[in-house]
């Protein structure tokens, strides 16, 4: 059964695992997974970025570990094994966040713990890692993590800029524009509420579909 010819590390097939999830197979806007955290943590760029990084790490390593274990696990108990692996990784990530970026970790609050239930991770482990070799599985994990993070950062960019007038905590819209300082501008409070994040996801899907017509359902 052994595959005699050696595949290059970044063959076209492997590269596709990495780039596919960025656009054509994007977890958020095509597979519609992980929407809940995309709405919850995108009020600012910083938490969105940290969340994206955490999810990428967890998907990549859970894919890698499950792919290594895939031949040894009876399929009946695979879900519980997956949960153990993912949960351990999430706890690791949580500890690292608490140690190095405590304020962001506080902002993300329960959503770090909830990475365990993020549909993208379970979905990729089930759909990809259990049937593929470790290296492609790892790349697939990175690709999906980045695909997810990319959307998160796009949403967070608009929400933070229009909702708070800042980006990454730095003021972009000058104070003197605001109504209370005699200007005309006012922050859009709706942007900070989750419903608007959903509208932005909808607009992103709209633009994405109109550029990739083959994704439009009949």
């Amino acid at each position: 059964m052994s595959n005699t010819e050696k595949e290059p590390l970044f063959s076209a097939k492997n590269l596709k695992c990495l780039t596919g999830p960025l656009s054509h197979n994007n977890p958020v806007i095509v597979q519609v997974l992980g929407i809940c955290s995309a709405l919850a943590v995108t009020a600012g760029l910083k938490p969105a970025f940290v969340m994206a990084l955490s999810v990428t790490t967890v998907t990549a390593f859970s894919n890698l570990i499950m792919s290594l274990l895939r031949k040894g696990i009876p399929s009946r108990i695979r879900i519980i094994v997956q949960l153990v692996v993912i949960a351990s990784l999430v706890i690791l990530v949580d500890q690292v966040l608490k140690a190095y970026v405590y304020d962001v970790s506080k902002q993300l609050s329960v959503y770090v713990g909830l990475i365990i239930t993020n549909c993208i991770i379970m979905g990729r482990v089930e759909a990809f890692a259990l049937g593929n070799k470790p290296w492609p599985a790892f790349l697939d994990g990175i690709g999906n993590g980045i695909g997810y993070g990319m959307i998160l950062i796009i949403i967070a960019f608009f929400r933070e800029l229009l909702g708070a007038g800042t980006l990454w905590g730095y003021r972009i819209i000058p104070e003197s524009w605001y109504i209370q300082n005699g200007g005309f501008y006012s922050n859009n409070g709706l942007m900070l509420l989750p419903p608007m994040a959903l509208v932005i996801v909808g607009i992103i899907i709209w633009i994405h579909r109109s550029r990739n017509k083959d994704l439009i359902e009949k």
Partner: protein
Amino acid sequence: MKALRKYVDKIKPAFEEGGKLHALHSTFDAFETFLFVPDTVTRKGAHVRDCNDIKRVMIVVVLALLPALLFGMYNVGLQHFRSLGEAAGVMQCFWFGFLRVLPIVVVSYVVGLGIEFAAAQLRGHEVNEGFLVTGMLIPLVMPVDIPLWMVALATAFAVIIGKEVLGGTGMNIFNPALLARAFIFFSYTPCISGETVWTAGLGKGEGVIDGFSGATPLTSLGEAVTSSADIVWNNAASIKAAVSSAPMDWFLGTIPGSIGETSVVAILIGAVILLFTGVASWRTMFSVFAGGLLMGGIFNLVGGNAYLDMPAYYHLLLGGFAFGAVFMATDPVTSAQTNTGKVVVGLLIGMIAVLIRVVNPGYPEGMMLAILFMNALAPLVDHYVVAANIRRRNKRVVVAKSK
């Protein structure tokens, strides 16, 4: 009129198939049918032969809105001069209000119609007339001091996200005008709530005489209840002390509030026009009022604070209740389609509006949220009404067969 017809006929060929400006034909059609009754007739399989079309229906609604608009303009002036403590004649008040309200109307129409025309051109559809009414409703539910760019943004949001995305006129889930208001309400809360936004110039700190309150009666009422003040409801002086206006003012509309919502009289004139021409459903309209009375009555029985004890019919005079019942809840697109459904939805709108007002101190006005909420539920109500009808008729068939 004849010259206009001639001119339209002269430029028409350019817009027809093969003409130079064919790409703009839906824009041309929109203006032509706006000016003249179209001469196209149904050729086959006609269902209803009538000179009425969406455009005529919409114009009737706009006519029905005129009393509220005109009174709103007058009231804007009245409140403004009251806040300054100056005496002003009717015409002076009206002219001041006219100058303040007109820009909002213009912005609403220009932005909304602009998007509608653009969307029609892009899709190759005909321009739909739905915005004629929405464009008039939006200014009427805004406070007079609202910055114009907010009106423009909210209108764009309502038309694009609330309507065009879902398929245009007739396909929207939510009433676009209320969506525009909700957008501003949640985005720019300080600009559409509180005490200073309802009177022109008050927010900018123009001179105010002692004893003038720019708060709407509902806001004052909410505050009176929070500070557990006692209001004797059968004593006009006690009411006036608490909310600085009397029930008669609420009925006539000489109180602070959104531009078109204050005067129940003007709204009732509109309601008569709508009901007489059959444009709006009397079932919805009356059941909204009935729902308000019912919920108010229930609260009266419970009692406990000044708000709960307020006579139920006062709710119908205050805030946007009448305006919502007559012009918003009756929207033929977003309301229920079945007759029973209309009654159910109407009752629930009235009840929820009063419920929000009385129970949630965070939202002094509940009408907007109640109508939007029931807009979302209307298809569900319709579904169950239809399902019940099918069940009933099935039973009849079974009975008939078994005989």
